[in-house]
């Protein structure tokens, strides 16, 4: 399996596009799997467990984006934000080991 960040989304397409742009700008590959429904935290946690890079993103219908890491406890994600571009960027930065923007 190729390395990638997994994005599980049940949210708006325009936000998804921004999330992906954030990762692309940082040069980290990603894959998107649409979901019928689900909360951002659940999606992010699942995505992180399944992601070969151990980082997952969940986007839900409310527009909330959560970035998670497979080794972190479920209740303690890396970030929760409504700025989709930033979420994508943060996820990529965790993978490449760059400091996260506050």
């Amino acid at each position, binding site marked *: 399996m190729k390395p990638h960040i997994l994005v599980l989304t049940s949210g708006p397409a325009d936000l998804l596009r921004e999330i992906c742009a954030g990762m692309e*700008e940082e040069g980290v590959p990603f894959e998107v799997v649409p979901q019928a429904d689900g909360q951002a935290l659940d999606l992010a946690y699942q995505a992180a467990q399944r992601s070969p890079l151990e980082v997952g993103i969940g986007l839900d219908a409310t527009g909330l984006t959560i970035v998670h890491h497979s080794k972190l406890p479920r209740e303690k994600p890396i970030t929760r934000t409504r700025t989709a571009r930033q979420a994508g960027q943060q996820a990529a930065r*965790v993978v490449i080991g760059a*400091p996260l923007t*506050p």
Partner: protein
Amino acid sequence: MSLVVGVDIGNSTTEACAALITAEGVEFLGSGLVPTTGIKGTTANVDGVEAAVRAALRTSRLALPALQRVFVNEATPVISGLAMETITETLITESTMIGHDPRTPGGAGLGVGVTVAFGELDECSPGEKVIVVVPVGIDFAVVSKALNAALERGVDLRGAVLGNDDAVLVANRISCSIPIVDEVRLVSSVPLGMTAAVEVAAPGRTIRTLSNAYGLATVFELNADQTRAVSPVARALTGIRSAVVVRTPSGEVSDRHIPAGTLELGGETSTVRIDVGEGAEAIMAALARVTPMKDASGEAGTNVGGMLASVKENMADVSGVDLAEVRIGDLLAVDTFVPQEVRGGLAGEVALENAVALAAMVRTSHGPMQQVALAISQRLRREGAAEVEVVIGGVEAEMATRGALTTPGTDRPLVVLDLGGGSTDAALADRSGAISTVHVAGAGDLVTRLIASELGVERDVAEEIKQSPLAKAESFFHLRLEDGTVQFFEEPLPPEVFARVVVLSTDALVPIPVRHSVDRIRQVRRTAKQRVFVVNALRALKQIAPYRDLRQIGFVVLLGGSALDFEIPELIADALAPYGIVCGTGNVRGSEGPRNAVASGLVLSRS
């Protein structure tokens, strides 16, 4: 048999030790350390003294009523001041360069063309060499589409300058490979219709053409005089991954030397004048010629004049001495550099400007110790020590050497080096027991100031950097320490620490909010300590050593707060090793470390 307490009122801490004096000698019991209240040598010290006495008695399991005598030191306050002034300035007139270093530029290579606004790309004719300038807020898909359309029409697109952080996104979506620089904050100020060059280096490399004066000359077809004028541009662009240079008719980057003024150092017999612009080394050489210095002043109306005036004012405020009476007894000049935003830059570019930091020191007259002693005895009597008698002990330096000699393995001739916050104080006890002292300006506070300015961080962050080793959070569960070892954590580290350089302070991980590497910060920290403490240790020892020969000193005992530092003692010991000196951190009475020397000395001198 009597219960006594020795109290040392220092600039920042008040230390005490309790002891029983019997016919056989002295039996030390406990000790205490509290922050000094008020300025050393004033009656405001009483609160701190009471707290220190109580702490010393508490650790001895004794109460105030049993206390018979208190010895306090004769305080000679040494007050210090700091100032820093930049002596060069880089300014860009008519915006000719964008030398910033976005994390993610796009494409690679060098492109030269004429700057064209994004909205006017449609009007470019085929074959025209173009550098497109895209304002903030235009979506990357829109930008890519327009650039592709222009390329299809045959426009020779050579490079792009973006306001957004979109360089990689755009580079991935256009049909040719061009260098793209993004996150240019003031993209709207980029001059249009001018010849410009955009360069992006491959990952892991730095730009080659725009950082080379002859590269610029080739790109812009400059003659020798023009090349001389643009050479500061090249210098300002070294070591970065991407840059844009726009050639405007009258624009230039200049490297201005700010007239820093002259410093006047007055010695006993002569006065030396020295231009601050000549740097720290020249200033210190001039100072050595007039030592012992009587006073120093700066030329009025210049930076150095302002610097010394502010130091003196500050010292007059602190000590309560009349401004006209303040005499600077010693100076330490250190060459440093300050990262400053370039005036006229378009993307928040930063240039390293040269600066000189000065630490100055004054010895004021003795404080009103009789009043302080009286106030202490009144207070302690009121608090229950009905029979206490407060005695002003001997000279501080004598007490310090006496206390330092209780460090196991020491003997005369011995020098005590007290590494404080504002000044470094040395006291020599020679074979016969005679004492001499010297105070030199510059200590812990100057180190903090140098770290803060060279890294561009706040004073409190610099203080943390000074005190503890560094580490980098490499994952959510482990830190790589500056010596290469790894520390694991069971609880995940907070996200704001992730991938950042942190200071391993005793109770927390303090993230450092700058992009510097662990190595760079470590180097700044260690050189700051070198340039202050090692330089001052040598300076003080040279002044105090018998016949000015360091080989005549047998033992150097380091005392004071900075002697507890995790690396300063070893830096000084390394520097003194060639002179055959035994140097180490003191361990007063074999148990107190570099603390409590004066308090212990006060008690010992009374037994």
